[in-house]
C-alpha cells in the first residue's frame, strides 16, 4: 500500500541507495580474492581467480558461444519434465480430492515413491529411456512429482469449514464448491509445490546428465571439472544458477498474477480493475 502511494522516483532512488552497499561488498570480496590469488596466498589451481572466471564466462558465452546449445537443452529437459510431472501430479491430486476411495488407494504408492530417493533411479531410467533427452525428462518428471502432488492435495482438502458451510447453506453445487472454494484455497499451496517441483526438476535433469549424456550443462560441468578447468566449470555452474533463477522468477511471476489476492499491491490493482468494470456497468 505504501509502495503505491510513494512517488516512483523516490522509490527507485531508494532501491538504488540500498543496492550500493551490497555492490560495494561484493566488489570488495572479489577484489580481495583476486588480490590474494595474485600475491600468492591462494596458490591452488582448484580456486581460480575471479578474472579467470570472468574470462571463462566471456569465452563460453561470446567468443566460442558453446554454452547456448547446452543451456537450452538442459532448460528444455527440465521444463518438459516439469510439465509432465506437474500435470500427472495435479491430475492425481484433483482425482484424490474428489474421491475418498481413489485417495486411499493412491496415497500408499505416492508415499513409497516419496521415500525412495528418486535419484537412485537414474541408472535404471537411463537404461530404459536411452542416452538422449528422454531419460533426463523422465527423471525430472519423477523427481518433481511428489512435492506438487502433496501440496495440491493438501490445498484441495484443507478448506475452511465455515466457508464450506456457507457454500452448502447457499446451495452451491459440487462443481461450484470445487471451482469457487477448493481451487482458490489450494492455489497458494499449489504454487508453493510448483516452485519446489521446478527446482527438483532441474536437479533431475542435471544429475541424469552427469550420469550419461552428450549434451547439456551437466555434461559440460563434469567435462570441465575432470579437465581441471576450474574457471570454466565455475562459469558453467553460474549458468545453472541462471537457469534456476530464470525458472524460479517465472514461477514467482505467475504466482503473483494468478494468486493475486495474497499480495497487497496486486490485490489493490485487481480490486481497482474490478471497480472500474462495475463503474462502467453502472454508467450504462
Amino acid at each position: 500500500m505504501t509502495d503505491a502511494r510513494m512517488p516512483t522516483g523516490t522509490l527507485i532512488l531508494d532501491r538504488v541507495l540500498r543496492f550500493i552497499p551490497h555492490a560495494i561488498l561484493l566488489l570488495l570480496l572479489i577484489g580481495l580474492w583476486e588480490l590474494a590469488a595474485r600475491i600468492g596466498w591462494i596458490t591452488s589451481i582448484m580456486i581460480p581467480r575471479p578474472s579467470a572466471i570472468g574470462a571463462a564466462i566471456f569465452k563460453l558465452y561470446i567468443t566460442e558461444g558453446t554454452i547456448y546449445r547446452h543451456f537450452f537443452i538442459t532448460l528444455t529437459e527440465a521444463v518438459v519434465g516439469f510439465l509432465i510431472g506437474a500435470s500427472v501430479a495435479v491430475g492425481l491430486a484433483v482425482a484424490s480430492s474428489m474421491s475418498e476411495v481413489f485417495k486411499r488407494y493412491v496415497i500408499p504408492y505416492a508415499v513409497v515413491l516419496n521415500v525412495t530417493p528418486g535419484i537412485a533411479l537414474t541408472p535404471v531410467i537411463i537404461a530404459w529411456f536411452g542416452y538422449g533427452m528422454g531419460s533426463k525428462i523422465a527423471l525430472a518428471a519423477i523427481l518433481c512429482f511428489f512435492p506438487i502432488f502433496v501440496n495440491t492435495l493438501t490445498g484441495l482438502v484443507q478448506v475452511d469449514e465455515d466457508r464450506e458451510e456457507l457454500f452448502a447453506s447457499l446451495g452451491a453445487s459440487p462443481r461450484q464448491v470445487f471451482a469457487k472454494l477448493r481451487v482458490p484455497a489450494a492455489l497458494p499451496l499449489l504454487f508453493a509445490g510448483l516452485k519446489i517441483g521446478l527446482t527438483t526438476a532441474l536437479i533431475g535433469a542435471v544429475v541424469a546428465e552427469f550420469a550419461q549424456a552428450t549434451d547439456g550443462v551437466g555434461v559440460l560441468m563434469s567435462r570441465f571439472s575432470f579437465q581441471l578447468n576450474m574457471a570454466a566449470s565455475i562459469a558453467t555452474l553460474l549458468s545453472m544458477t541462471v537457469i534456476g533463477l530464470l525458472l524460479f522468477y517465472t514461477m514467482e511471476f505467475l504466482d503473483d498474477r494468478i494468486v493475486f489476492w495474497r499480495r497487497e499491491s496486486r490485490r489493490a490493482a485487481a480490486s481497482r480493475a474490478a471497480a472500474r468494470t462495475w463503474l462502467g456497468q453502472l454508467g450504462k
Partner: protein
Amino acid sequence: MVAVQHVGDDRTAGNAARNLRNRRILAHAAIFVILIATWEIASRLGWLDPLFYPRPSNIMRSFWLIYVQNGNVWYHLGVTMSLVFMGFIGGSVLGIVLGSLVGLNATLRRFLKPYVIVLEATPRIAVAPLLIAALGFGVTSKIAIIVLVCFFAPFINTLSGVMNVNAEKLELFKAMGASKWQILRKLVLPDAIPVIMAGERLALTAALSGALVAEFIQRDQGIGSLILVYTRNLNMASAFACIFTLTILGFLIFRGMEIIDQYIAFWKHEGGRDRVSAKRRAAMGPQT
C-alpha cells in the same frame, strides 16, 4: 448397569472400526498382489522385455542373492550410510549454527540475503563434479558433497524459525526482565524447534540423494555405485533389489525422524506432553 452397557457399546464400536480397518488392509493387499501378478504374467507372456523390466520373482531372487547368498550389499550399504550420517551431522550443525547467527543479526541477514537467493536457485548437487575434482576421489569429497547438499534446508528453516518470534510473547519476556540468553533459550528456540526439525528431515533425504550422486560419479563403492554397476551389466533385477532397499531405508529414516521429532519437540504431540508432565510429576513427588 448403565456403565457396563456403555463399555459394551464402546467395544462393539471398536470392533467395527477394527473390522473396517482389516477389510481395508485386505483390499490394499489384494490390489498390490494383483498388480504384481499382472506384471509377472505380462513378463512371462513376453509383453515386457525381462531384460529391461525385471520380473517380481526375479527381483525377489536377487534380494535373496545380494542379502544372503552373496551378502555383498551389506558392505556397500554400510559405506553409504556412514557417509550419509557424517555428512548429515556436519551439514545440519553448520546449517543450524549459521541459521541462528544470521536470524538473530539483522545486518548480517541483509547482506547475506542475495547470496542465499542465488544459492537457493543453483542446483546444489551440480557442484559434485567440481568438489570431486578439487578434493580428489575418495571419502573427503563425498562427505563434502553431502554436507553441501544438506546444509541448506536446516539453514533456511532455522533462519525462518528464529525470525518468526511471537511479538507479544517477546514483549512479555522483556517486560519481565528476561536476559538475552533467557529469551533465546526459553522463547526463541522452543518456538523454532518444530520448524528446524522439519528442515532436518528434508536434510536427511537430501543427504541420501547427495551420497548417491557422489557414488554415481566416483563409481567405487557404496550402494549408488552398486546400482550403477548392476544396471550397466543389465542385471536389472539386482538393481531393483538395491532400489527397493533404498525405499525401505528411506521409510525407516522417515519414521526415525518422526520419533526423534516426538522426543525433541514433545509439546507438539499429545503423548509426548503427557509423558513429560508425568516425568515432572514423578520428580516433584518426593519433595512435596
